[in-house]
């Protein structure tokens, strides 16, 4: 395989090629940097750390010659610009932090580095991760690699673009209402939002304390599993496909409306899972009806509390959409937040009940495929695009249950993501279920 072709290979293959010295880390880094330059119009990166990456590659190559072993030794990754990186500016996609150079790495970044990963740079995102379109007013509107007139989704849009366009071997992102899973679905790759708290958030610029998660964005389920193991400080292990998997198909009102092409791709994916031995069962989760309001009240309050000082001292330094969201949160009464927490408890209880009947839940990740840049409304009345994009992902930020988005087909020319949700702490099962679909789709 040529070095350029390796840019599109799964992380596990990249690591294996490096291990048997079929390619050097330096060759790989150069190939990715070349791709990054050629694909600059996608606006995936905010900062490219070329010389730093080459230095890391030289060190990795020395270790590879010595037959050192580490799970990600020499693998070139890229990092959402919400994670602090020592000596490399960390903007959060904002004007406010445009010149912020941290003195330390985020804990998640440290774990990647300790596992031997090379970092190519920092990836574009919706300002402060507070939005899902990735129309960043300061660092450029990120573009979907399948169709640059469309959004990649966000807030980890740069992370998904970089994976799909072959600008890095894999990436990491954060997810407060769907920010890993939405861009993974709209761009056509795998995104894992682990159980709340599983991946450390130390050194990640927060958005909503009780909703923030960090996790991998990758080309395959096995790649996501490898990164998940490293990010959680566990030894990597093979992904095992579960036998006799019981899949709950949600039938609630929250799931409607969904674009016809998305519904059809979801249906076909469920049939493939059934063909692979899974058993499908319809499951009701009526508490989902409260999730939109609960997510909104929780996030508005938590984000506005975090941004309290800047919102008052330098409101004009925010992009307009983010400023308005923060202002609304600053005006909302505390009783809304309390109501939202009660709703969350109900939702968690409902989800626990559902998992007494099935092993995982399956639903579309987003009800729409990638909208056009600047599109404000969903293709049906009274739902804004950003509301539609988080409608099916945010319930699992509220509950903290792990959720995986993986490609399940196309609607027209655009990717569709299937979302699988597992009980808290059951990432192995979740990744295994994802692998089942991935294999059945080959």
């Amino acid at each position, binding site marked *: 395989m040529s070095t350029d072709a390796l840019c599109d290979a799964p992380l596990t293959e990249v690591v294996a090629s490096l291990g048997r010295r079929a390619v050097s880390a330096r060759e790989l880094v150069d190939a990715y940097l070349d791709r990054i330059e050629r694909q600059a119009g996608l606006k995936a990166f905010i900062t490219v750390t070329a010389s730093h990456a080459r230095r890391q590659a030289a060190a990795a190559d020395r270790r590879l010659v010595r037959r050192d072993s580490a799970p990600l030794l020499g693998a070139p990754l890229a990092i959402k610009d919400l994670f602090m990186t020592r000596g490399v500016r960390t903007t959060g996609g904002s004007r406010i932090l445009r010149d912020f150079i941290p003195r330390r790495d985020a804990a998640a970044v440290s774990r990647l580095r300790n596992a031997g990963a090379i970092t190519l740079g920092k990836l574009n995102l919706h300002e402060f991760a507070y939005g899902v379109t990735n129309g960043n007013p300061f660092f450029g509107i990120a573009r979907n690699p399948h169709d640059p007139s469309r959004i990649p989704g966000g807030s980890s849009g740069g992370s998904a673009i970089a994976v799909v366009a072959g600008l890095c071997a894999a990436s990491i992102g954060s997810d407060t209402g769907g920010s890993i899973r939405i861009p993974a679905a709209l761009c056509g790759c795998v995104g894992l939002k682990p159980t709340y708290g599983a991946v450390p958030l130390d050194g990640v610029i927060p958005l909503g304390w009780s909703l923030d998660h960090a996790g991998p964005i990758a080309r395959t389920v096995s790649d996501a599993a490898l990164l998940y193991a490293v990010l959680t400080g566990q030894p990597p292990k093979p992904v095992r496909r579960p036998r006799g998997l019981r899949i709950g198909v949600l039938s609630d009102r929250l799931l409607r409306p969904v674009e016809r092409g998305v519904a059809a791709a979801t249906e076909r994916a469920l049939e493939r899972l059934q063909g692979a031995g899974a058993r499908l069962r319809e499951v009701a989760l009526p508490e989902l009806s409260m999730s939109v309001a609960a997510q909104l009240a929780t996030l508005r309050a938590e984000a506005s509390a975090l941004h309290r000082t800047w919102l008052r001292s330098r409101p004009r330094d925010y992009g*307009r959409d983010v400023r308005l969201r923060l202002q609304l949160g600053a005006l909302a009464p505390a009783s809304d937040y309390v109501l939202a927490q009660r709703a969350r408890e109900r939702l968690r209880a409902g989800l626990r009940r559902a998992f007494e009947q099935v092993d995982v839940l399956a639903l579309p990740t987003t009800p729409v495929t990638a909208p056009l840049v600047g599109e404000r409304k969903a293709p049906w009345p009274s739902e804004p695009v950003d509301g539609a994009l988080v409608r099916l992902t945010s319930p699992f930020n509220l509950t903290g249950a792990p959720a995986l988005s993986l490609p399940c087909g196309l609607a027209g020319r655009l990717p569709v993501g299937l979302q699988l949700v597992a009980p808290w702490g059951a990432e192995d099962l979740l990744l295994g279920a994802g692998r089942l679909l991935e294999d059945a789709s080959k």
Partner: protein
Amino acid sequence: MTEREALAGAARAADLRLGARDLEALTGAWRRYRELMAALAEELAEDLPPG
């Protein structure tokens, strides 16, 4: 007092500086937010005994 005036007053009290365009956009967003929260409060109302 209109909804917009009430919101402008609340913003001043919260020490937020709102331009006319922001106030306009916020008024619409606020209305939708209040509707959602009213529906949520209604769903959770069964927690209380009937008054």
